[in-house]
């Protein structure tokens, strides 16, 4: 799949709420709008269900970007789940920044059931922005850090390190 | 605030009275302005049709000069009274803002003459400045002769508010009407405010140009306008100077004054007709003079 001979393509995971954005993505399909094939959608009932852990897990598992789609403010099927998401998102953004993950890699968009066109433009725009940023490659970075730590451990305490192994 | 003033070619020759009256009004209202140094022809509509790139280049030279001359001012506002100049400058600015390739080309051309254009300059029509910056209330306060009882047909011509002006509606502009009301006169409600007067066609192909002017004058007269006011040197020329020709062609006896809005405003502000360049008119706007002097005709 991601073999070295293939050109790198951004991999983005999207969380779309069932009522607005997922429906809008269906509308984009029914309208045969063409957009970049780099986004994989996970359906949730409400953007309020998107746990910040999911987003961190997505990055940790090797994705280059996360897109969250919810209903417009005031239009949430569950009254205010999208506001709850927004609050979490603002905090999470700060945290991601500190972790060195660029702002354009994590995006929250309000897309109503009627906005198939917006699904297309948001996805295309995001794919382009992430493409410019290049691969994030957290798993690789982590394994590199792991290796380094092992080496350091060995240096500090050769016997214990052997035991661990 | 201080404005830059870009006269354009017309205001220095056929449209001289437009310049005379406008500058007199600006002075009377204490609106500070200075003429743009070393300005050149805007290219007008004709050049735009021949070679767009070159047309944008010569128009943008004026914009670059403005940015140069006012580089120490907080804001750069340039007044372009001639409707062709106003439209061409706006169009150039708009086109360059949305077309990076052309902008690059123009920049390199400007660089040759040591200039650069950043898009900071704001292109303003004098109507816009008077109505929106100076304000109608202030104008009313400054009026010396309320032009009570005269009916005025405001005529913008095809270029003033179209296609890019943002200070008024493109189909139903009202700023001139508001100005007319502010000086005590009554605007005529008519549908021809932005209809073409025939423009340069009147001089070249008379049978196309003349009927267009005729429609405007005929409707203005039908709606009992005492005078037509305009903001375009070419419109003023077409509508005023061809009246005999029109009457011959249409078996009519139209005789209606066609003056610049700045001349009407100047009269209301108490400026003498001569200072407003009104001695150059072929058709004397008698009704307006009567209103100014309380029934007596003034001859200039």
């Amino acid at each position, binding site marked *: 799949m991601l073999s070295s001979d293939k050109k790198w393509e951004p991999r983005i995971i999207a969380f779309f709420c069932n009522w607005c954005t997922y429906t809008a993505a269906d509308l984009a399909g029914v309208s045969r709008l*063409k957009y970049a094939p780099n986004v994989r*959608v996970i359906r949730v009932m409400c953007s309020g269900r998107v746990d910040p852990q999911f987003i961190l897990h997505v990055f940790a598992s*090797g994705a280059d970007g996360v897109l969250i789609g919810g209903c417009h403010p005031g239009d949430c099927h569950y009254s205010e789940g999208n506001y709850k998401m927004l609050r979490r998102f603002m905090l999470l953004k700060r945290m991601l920044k500190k972790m060195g993950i660029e702002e354009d890699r994590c995006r929250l968009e309000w897309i109503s059931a009627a906005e198939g066109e917006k699904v297309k433009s948001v996805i295309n725009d995001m794919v382009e922005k992430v493409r410019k940023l290049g691969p994030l490659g957290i798993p690789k970075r982590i394994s590199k850090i792991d290796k380094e730590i092992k080496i350091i451990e060995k240096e500090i305490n050769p016997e214990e390190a052997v035991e661990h192994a | 605030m201080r404005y830059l003033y870009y006269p354009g070619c017309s205001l220095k020759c056929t449209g001289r009275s437009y310049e005379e009256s406008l500058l007199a009004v600006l002075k009377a209202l204490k609106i500070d302005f200075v003429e743009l140094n070393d300005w050149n022809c805007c290219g007008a509509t004709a050049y735009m049709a021949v070679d767009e790139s070159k047309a944008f280049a010569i128009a943008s030279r004026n914009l670059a000069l403005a940015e140069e001359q006012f580089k120490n001012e907080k804001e750069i506002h340039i007044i372009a009274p001639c409707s062709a100049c106003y439209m061409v400058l706006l169009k150039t600015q708009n086109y360059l803002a949305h077309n990076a390739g052309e902008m690059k080309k123009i920049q390199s051309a400007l660089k040759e003459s040591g200039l650069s254009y950043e898009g900071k300059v704001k292109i303003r029509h004098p109507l816009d400045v008077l109505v929106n910056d100076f304000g109608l209330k202030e104008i009313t306060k400054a009026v010396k002769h309320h032009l009570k009882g005269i009916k005025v047909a405001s005529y913008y011509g095809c270029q003033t508010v179209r296609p890019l002006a943002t200070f008024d509606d493109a189909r139903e502009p009202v700023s001139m009407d508001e100005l007319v009301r502010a000086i005590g006169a009554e605007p005529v409600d008519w549908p021809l405010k932005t209809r073409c007067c025939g423009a340069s066609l009147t001089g070249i192909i008379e049978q196309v140009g003349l009927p267009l002017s005729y429609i405007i004058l005929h409707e203005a007269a039908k709606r009992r306008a005492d005078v037509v006011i305009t903001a375009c040197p070419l419109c003023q020329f077409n509508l005023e100077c061809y009246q005999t020709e029109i009457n011959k062609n249409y078996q009519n006896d139209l005789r209606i004054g066609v003056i610049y809005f700045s001349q009407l405003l100047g009269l209301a502000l108490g400026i003498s007709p001569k200072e407003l360049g009104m001695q150059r008119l072929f058709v004397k706007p008698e009704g307006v003079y009567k209103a100014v002097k309380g029934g007596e005709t003034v001859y200039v």
Partner: protein
Amino acid sequence: MYSTNGNNIPRIGFYICHCGHNIASIVDVVEVQKYAATLPGVTVSRDYKYMCSDPGQELIQQDIKEHNLNRIVVASCSPLLHEHTFRLAAEKAGLNPYYFHMVNVRENVSWVHDNKEQATEKAKDLARAAIKRVFFHKPLEKKTVQIKPDVLIVGGGIAGIHSALTIANAGKHVYLVEREPTIGGHMAMFDKTFPTLDCAACILTPKMSAVKSHPNITLWTYSEVEKIDGFVGNYKATIKRKPRYVNEELCVGCLDCIEACIYKEAKYPDEFNLGLSKRKPIYIPFPQATPQVVLFDPETCIDFKSHRCKKTCIEACERNAIDLKQTAKFEEIEVGTVIISTGFKTYDPKLSPQYGYGKLPNVYTSLEIERLVNASGPTAGEVVTRDGKKPESVGIIHCVGSRDEKSNKWCSRVCCMYSLKLAHLIKEHTGAEVYNFYIDMRTPGKGYEEFYDKFMNEGVHFIRGRVAEVTDWALVPEEENKLTIRVEDTLIGVVRRIPVDMVVLSVGLEPREDASEIRRMFNISCSSEGFFLERHPKLAPVNTFTDGIFIAGACQGPKDIPDTVAQAGAAAEALSLISAGKIELEPNTAQVIEKYCSGCKSCIPLCPYTAISFKEDIKKAYINEALCKGCGTCVAACPSGSITQNMFEDEQIFSEIEGLLKFAGIELEEKEVEHA
């Protein structure tokens, strides 16, 4: 209840649908099928032309039995379309339907991409994620709720009236709420209806009185829904009944009070006649208004302003029905289902200034002409211009506020037909020359093309071209004192100027100004133009995404009367819910795992349905399943991870994420499960 087919070790059936060419032309379904077969846990992997067809479903059922499958993944269209179908199929084969998961490779893949290789790659990723996800699926029991039998209908135009009568005739109770003082809606304003030219009043007013007298219908006019809460089967609504200042039970509609009003002449613009006639401060919208009850307009009644009127109206009322101290009343009702039939508004032609409406007095809207040609209208059916003259020529301009980049892009569907009708009626009333200016004639309906044909032969002129301008300036003496229509006649390729005495603007249909507020109140969606959004344009045209809320008529999109009445089949949807008596809901509710709950209470204020409470005795949160609607907000917010949501458990979503992104860990995962 269901067999789990020994679900500890997943035996997955994977199916990918060709959907004819819809999926198979872009996604290499055979490759995906073969790939899925290599994934751990997959026992059967198949591709099939139409998975949703009977044979497709039988394939799944057979495999469940033969191969002892305990998980099903189908990759086909959107779950919003066929999730239910496949769940049912699994259930029929004895498998708990929640062991099923659906992958969207049509709307999300084949229809939106054109690179085959990348589309196939994406389909594989999605399939792998689903296969990993179903490992963690659990058997769930469906949640059922009872359906209260009463129905609330919002909007008393022809759609609301027809729906109300259908439901009431089936023996169920209806609350019909109408904002205006009378029901009837736009249809009551029309003179004749196309294509049969029967009189609108003759076919509508009997239905209006049937609504009023029906024992199963509670009719509240001059009322609005103030608030609605609850969920399918169990809605609680508050209806505000605005004061008419007349006791509805006592008033018999004798109209003596109107006669007695101290204003001898009517002097205020009459809303029903669109301001073409006048009314008094006490009035009835039109003679057949239902209910036949007068009302006061406090804005114009002297007594409301000065309290010094002689109150001759009160003296005149023998039944003492007038009550100037009346205030708004609020009614609380409980209903199981709601039908929204709030209709449309007509385009405001002032927004297209080139047609001169509002400026040139003899430019009318089509709705105004409907009133003018109406025998009970402001001129008793005489078509005259505002200066009282009979027009000798009339121009009808189609598509005003329709099919126009600058106003509304959509076709309003009814304008061609009503313009034809008005052309005929004007000709009949005045003998004038009538010109129709159209872009395209659209007459797709039973008897509609024949209707068009008939009037072409009647001598109505048809000029193809969008009108540039309606103006009162004259080019030639014949145009003096006339309205001139400037148009490019695209059939002969010339610009024409046609002077007429009267111009009719065939205005398009738009969503109501407050459609957005209604949408929010009832928790439904709007399409981009602002009409209410149906669940599926073909298969669920009157359903919304909110269970138990239906839409009917022109609030969903422009419609003529026959189509509106047909759409009032929303009533049938409501009735089918009522007669089922209950509805199954997604069991996607959340619950607290008590042993992990730390009692921090952070979830409690998050729930919009107040479903979470705090058990003081054990200091733990508790979720009332009946109130939970399954948004999952509390789950995401719980700091100790002690709330789970059925169908969207953390591990299900984590496995989906990993399935999408991790490529190496699959074998490892399988061993873990096998050992579990």
